């Protein structure tokens, strides 16, 4: 199997609520330019592109077609990927396969979202518009919520259900969610590319009201405008073109059934079970030759739209035992200078340009491995293996990538 490495990352200068100074294609162009600057490459070095975002959020269909002239994609093979919240990583995985297949040697993966140009609530609610219609017609009081009614969980929806179930099964307390939230926002304050960057204490989080217990306002992620670009290359090209690379050694994804609002077809899954996480992680570890992830994984970047999810994913992905994550948190093991730094970037919880969010995870891992972090959240210890995780759909999709400081050895 051909080895593929990330040789460079480009971010938009900031991730903020509203970029009113640029339109969509200009914004994406900023990240593409940054990637070229950071790698000293030019468009001629790029063989092909992959491109992804959640397009209905901007009301723009197949945006790569408009963006072509603005991202140096003219006359280049291009493929568009779109898988909901996991889009960022799915797009990077597509770039990985373009190189691993031998078809191309250097591929640029472009991911982004400009949610200020759309209505995310509509975009998200639109996933289940027809199902919601049927439920209403069948007498369900969707938002008033009595009886067998309600999307339930209030405006945080199934995330609250997931949090309650997770707390019950893990033994963690609601205060642990507050603690994880404070840790990640404080991490984000060190990251110039994060959106919410205020140093945050547990008290700050607890001062926010509950929306749907156990989740508070302070536990939810922002919506951001921004773009993230990664350039991947084969081993030979990486040696020629780059001084350093973060090697993609494990790649996996898994899809469950749509576990929220699947009422019409029967929901058989606990939203906190997330079996695809275990399936995908095991596959990625095997591919990367990682036999003891609890020891061998040095850092994790997890897709956490809600603060409790960092703790949940650590367990579901096998980075710690079930019920152990909150104990690691209490010990300080999840801090940037701990044994298992988790979301040193602040995670999706601090920055969420949805189409790019699942790409920011491997991007941050790559920058950590290559020690090219701009900002003060560089993990002090050596990072040999990192786990990047993506999540999306109706609580159903999980993608996992393992990045390492060395390519896989031929068997």
């Amino acid at each position: 199997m051909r080895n593929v490495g990330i040789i460079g990352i480009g971010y938009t200068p900031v991730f903020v609520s509203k970029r009113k100074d640029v339109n969509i294609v200009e914004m994406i162009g900023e990240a593409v330019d940054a990637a070229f600057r950071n790698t000293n490459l030019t468009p001629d070095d790029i063989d092909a592109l992959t491109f992804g975002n959640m397009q209905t959020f901007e009301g723009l269909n197949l945006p790569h077609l408009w963006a072509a002239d603005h991202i140096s994609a003219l006359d280049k093979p291009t493929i568009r990927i779109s898988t909901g919240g996991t889009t960022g990583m799915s797009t990077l995985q597509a770039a990985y396969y373009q190189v691993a297949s031998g078809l191309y040697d250097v591929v640029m993966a472009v991911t982004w979202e400009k949610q200020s140009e759309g209505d995310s609530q509509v975009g998200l609610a639109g996933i289940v518009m027809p199902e919601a219609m049927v439920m209403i017609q069948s007498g369900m009081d969707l938002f008033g919520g009595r009886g067998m009614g309600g999307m339930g969980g209030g405006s945080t929806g199934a995330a609250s259900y997931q949090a309650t179930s997770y707390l019950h099964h893990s033994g963690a307390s609601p205060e642990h969610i507050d603690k994880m939230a404070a840790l990640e926002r404080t991490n984000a304050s060190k990251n110039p590319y994060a959106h919410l960057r205020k140093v945050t204490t547990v008290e700050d989080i607890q001062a926010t009201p509950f929306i749907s217990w156990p989740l508070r306002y302070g536990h939810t992620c922002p919506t951001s405008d921004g773009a993230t670009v990664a350039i991947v290359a084969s081993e030979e090209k990486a040696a020629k073109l780059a001084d350093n690379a973060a090697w993609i050694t494990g790649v996996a994804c898994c899809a469950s059934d749509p576990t929220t609002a699947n009422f019409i077809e029967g929901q058989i899954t606990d939203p906190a079970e997330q079996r695809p996480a275990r399936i995908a992680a095991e596959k990625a570890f095997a591919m990367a030759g990682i036999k003891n992830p609890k020891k061998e994984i040095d850092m994790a970047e997890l897709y956490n739209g809600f603060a409790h999810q960092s703790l949940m994913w650590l367990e579901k992905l096998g980075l710690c035992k079930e019920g152990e994550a909150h104990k690691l948190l209490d010990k300080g093991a999840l801090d940037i200078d701990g044994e298992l730094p988790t979301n040193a970037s602040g995670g999706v919880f601090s920055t969420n340009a949805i189409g790019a969010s699942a790409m920011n995870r491997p991007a941050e891992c790559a920058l950590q491995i290559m020690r090219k972090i701009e900002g003060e959240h560089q993990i002090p210890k050596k990072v040999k293996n990192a786990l990047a995780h993506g999540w999306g759909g109706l609580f159903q999709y999980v993608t996992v990538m393992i990045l390492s400081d060395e390519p896989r050895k031929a068997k």
Partner: protein
Amino acid sequence: MTFEMGPETRQVQGTWDVTTYKYKIDGGGMKLLCDAMKEKKIRGIRCNECGTVYVPGPTFCRKCHVDIDEMVEVEDSGEVGTFAVEMADMRGNPTEKERVSAQIKLDGADTWLGGTIEGIDWKEVKIGMKVKAVWVDNPEGKLSDIDHFEPL
């Protein structure tokens, strides 16, 4: 490193009217359920290969990838699978009273149904607690025929 946002660029309004779409949904399982509720009963579909009981029933089993149509009746009581306590509405305004909404696994079914729980302080609600449906007096064959769930 500081970034200064430049002057605002041109902006225009637009819409995406989702209601102009003509969707097709399989409502068979919902109809089976709603018809049953008129009789204060709950019915779903069972997969003969793996035994999974879906309420409402889809037309095929997602595990076995086969057509399924065996109708089964399940209990109107079960266990709390998970729950949340609504304290603010969609806009963020605090609600008058906390409302417990839950996902309940009815006895005999493998699926979780949404419902509200009343008759108990929200702080006493536990996962695994047994609850029972409280029906309206005159069911009409709608999901609202179950008014709420109460602890058993």
